[in-house]
């Protein structure tokens, strides 16, 4: 486990189980989850080396070798291909990749030292430039009555006016920063809050003409900071980090590096954060100038015609959806759901709220490496929309408001890998698509998803039907058992237990399956998403369900034992005493499972020992009875 030492980077203090996603857990989870993806996707022939290294990292994090392999001679094209072909899904140096793709760092790793130094110095200069101390002015100032810099001045050149404006801006920013990702304790640390405040403030001041601060930027920055800090933590604790790795993730300069990445991303996202132009004029008349900006055959909403960049982009994306999923497109048009309604959040946060937190870095890596203008965003938009459309299509009611609500829900998608692949397919790449079944069942499996709560409202019989629909033969056994457990957790009343017992009987063994199920439920706990805010509730639920399971098993065991006993008595074989002793041992275990008897290892051990001395035991029995 981690050893906690005092550092400049704060580490979240977490209770052992269940831990909220801490900085190191982020990466270990990723490496554990990745083999599952690779197993489920059809094996691609050549590229085993990177996969195997990923597998190795699960057991032996050889970060140094990965670093050297990736960055000693950075082969931009091959790495880009690897990412886009989904051979390289996880990487321990995601933020370094980001920096390269975003041009914060050059491709040649020899130049990094210099580049890092200059960018860090530049940031320092920036911070000092915008740090205003109005009292410093007082020392230089003469007693010229006209030029006295006084606190109430509204003069633009006045230091005091700037000072107050800065305070106001900081006030706005800090409200948002305090509300980023409230679930994650990492963001509640005051040093992190200050760090984010400084970065956002300096960025806003530096670019106040082009990109003033808007809500949403804080979430983008949050992800960057989290990624950098978690990787930095891992690298700094890793003994074999080389010079360059340490320099890249120098904990003194996390702020500077995060600023660099943030600045570059904001250049691209600027168009989405632009203020919408005043639409009221458009309603009255269309001037000649404006018609130039209108797209031919653009659907004119009778309310207003928005002419800002982000809206036009979203509308164009929406039009493209028509070629890929005509049904969904028409449905959305029928409901009059403008893409800007849901799309603006998707784009401004770069899908930060639509996908699970751990997957965001992966998605962003693909976006950054795809091309220079974040073109992948369009394709992912469409793929996500199609995916959501499929999910929503499974629901019973499809009124306008509920449709819109479902579209606007956060964190519906739990597994983005298929969506990414779909999007890459749309770009024209030949990527193996993951089969559809795992997507849907994975969405049903995990607990935190909204979709699962929607399904809970359905009839239980339909759920049982869906269970049986999952093909038993093809999927590996672990996957088979998991959905059963998911339902075991949710069930409350006894009659449902009988409903479940049947599918369990379909699986190979009956009594032994109970212990396996308990084991796999434990492993499932381990794999469970730690983003789940209702973790405590599910642990209790699971515990209670385990108990119920045990009682059920005990019930069945007792039944079988009774029958066996009856048979033994009927048979009337010579050594039936021994058999009875074995049966009594089994009965004891059954009562222990039932909960009425406490586990007594000593007595069970003596029962087992009797087995080894058959003649003496019979003698003793004869003595007892005699």
């Amino acid at each position, binding site marked *: 486990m981690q050893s906690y030492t005092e550092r400049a980077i704060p580490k979240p203090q977490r209770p052992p189980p269940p831990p909220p996603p801490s900085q190191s857990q982020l990466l270990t989870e990723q490496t554990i989850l990745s083999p599952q993806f690779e197993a489920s996707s059809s094996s691609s022939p050549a590229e085993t080396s990177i996969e195997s290294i990923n597998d190795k990292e699960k057991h032996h994090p050889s970060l140094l070798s990965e670093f050297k392999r990736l960055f000693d001679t950075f082969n931009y094209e091959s790495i880009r291909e690897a990412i886009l072909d989904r051979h390289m899904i996880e990487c321990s140096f995601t933020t370094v990749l980001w920096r390269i793709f975003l041009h914060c760092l050059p491709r040649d790793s020899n130049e990094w030292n210099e580049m890092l130094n200059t960018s860090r110095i530049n940031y320092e200069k920036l911070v000092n430039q915008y740090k205003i101390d109005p009292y410093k002015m*007082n020392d230089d100032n003469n007693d010229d*009555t*006209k030029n006295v810099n*006084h*606190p*109430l001045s*509204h003069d633009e050149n006045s230091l005091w006016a700037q000072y*107050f404006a800065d305070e106001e801006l900081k006030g706005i920013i800090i409200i948002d920063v305090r509300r980023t990702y409230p679930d994650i304790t990492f963001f509640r640390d005051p040093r992190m809050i200050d760090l984010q405040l400084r970065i956002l403030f300096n960025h806003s001041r530096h670019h106040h003409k082009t990109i003033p601060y808007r809500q949403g930027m804080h979430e983008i920055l949050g992800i960057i900071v989290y990624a950098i800090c978690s990787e930095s933590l891992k690298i700094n604790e890793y003994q074999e980090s080389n010079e360059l790795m340490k320099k890249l993730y120098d904990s003194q300069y996390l702020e500077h590096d995060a600023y660099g990445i943030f600045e570059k991303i904001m250049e691209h996202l600027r168009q989405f954060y632009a203020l919408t132009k005043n639409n009221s004029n458009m309603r009255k008349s269309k001037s000649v100038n404006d018609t130039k900006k209108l797209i031919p055959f653009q659907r004119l909403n009778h309310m207003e015609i928005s002419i800002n960049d982000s809206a036009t982009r979203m509308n164009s994306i929406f039009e493209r959806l028509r070629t890929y999923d005509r049904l969904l497109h028409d449905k959305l048009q029928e409901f009059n759901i403008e893409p800007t309604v849901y799309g603006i959040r998707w784009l401004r946060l770069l899908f930060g709220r639509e996908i699970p937190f751990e997957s965001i870095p992966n998605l962003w890596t693909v976006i950054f490496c795809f091309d220079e203008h974040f073109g992948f965003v369009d394709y992912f938009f469409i793929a996500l929309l199609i995916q959501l459309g499929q999910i929503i299509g499974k629901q019973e009611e499809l009124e306008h408001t509920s449709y819109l609500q479902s579209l606007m829900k956060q964190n519906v998608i739990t597994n983005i890998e298929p969506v990414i692949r779909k999007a890459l397919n749309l770009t024209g790449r030949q990527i193996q698509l993951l089969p559809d079944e795992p997507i849907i069942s994975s969405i049903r499996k995990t607990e935190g998803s909204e979709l699962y709560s929607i399904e809970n409202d359905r009839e239980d019989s339909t759920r049982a039907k869906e269970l049986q629909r999952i093909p038993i033969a093809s999927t590996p056994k672990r996957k088979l058992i998991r959905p059963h457990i998911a339902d075991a957790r949710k069930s409350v009343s006894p009659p449902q237990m009988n409903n479940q017992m049947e599918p369990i009987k379909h699986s190979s063994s009956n009594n032994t399956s109970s212990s396996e199920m308990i084991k796999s439920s434990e492993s499932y706990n381990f794999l469970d998403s730690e983003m789940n805010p209702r973790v405590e509730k599910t642990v209790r639920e699971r515990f209670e369900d385990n108990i119920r399971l045990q009682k059920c098993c005990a019930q069945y065991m007792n039944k079988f034992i009774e029958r066996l006993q009856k048979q033994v008595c009927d048979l009337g074989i010579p050594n039936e005493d021994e058999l009875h002793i074995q049966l009594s041992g089994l009965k004891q275990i059954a009562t222990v499972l039932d909960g009425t008897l406490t586990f007594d290892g000593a007595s069970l051990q003596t029962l087992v020992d009797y087995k080894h001395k058959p003649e003496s035991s019979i003698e003793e029995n004869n003595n007892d009875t005699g």
Partner: protein
Amino acid sequence: MLVLVLGDLHIPYRVSGLPQEFRKLLTPGRIQHILCTGNLCTKETVDYLKTLTADVHIVRGDFDDNPNFVDQKVVTVGQFRIGLCHGHQIVPWGDIESLSMLQRQMDVDILITGHTHKFEAFERDNKFFINPGSATGAFNALNSSTIPSFVLMDIQQGSLTLYVYQLVNEKFTVERLEYRKA
């Protein structure tokens, strides 16, 4: 920390309102406290001061409508004890010795008084005496021409910076004085 000191407005009995220039200067959000020497005189002025900041301290002047203001007040801002009194109680009006006596009585580092409608700021016996004058330039019993003035104190740790705003020839002027606590 910015503290606004003003008084003797005499609105609406002698003057209709604050000068335009001063109104432009006084915007909410910058000032933390207001100390008012009195003679405002009506509730409307009190409300106006409250829009600038929540923390307003007023002492009773001889023409105030509201009889419930206190006669004297001591406020602690930073490391300074500041005494507030209108000044019509002190005879002779504005006399240095009498003010010193009041200061010793109240045991304050800074004594703020008004009533003379004349700006003053001086140091005596290591203590500071401020008279913000009349913010509206209302006439005084002894002096018919008054220059509108008020004072802004910037209190930092152990030092005090005084900004004096006066309206001369339709334009305001600013002076800066500094005082350090011994």
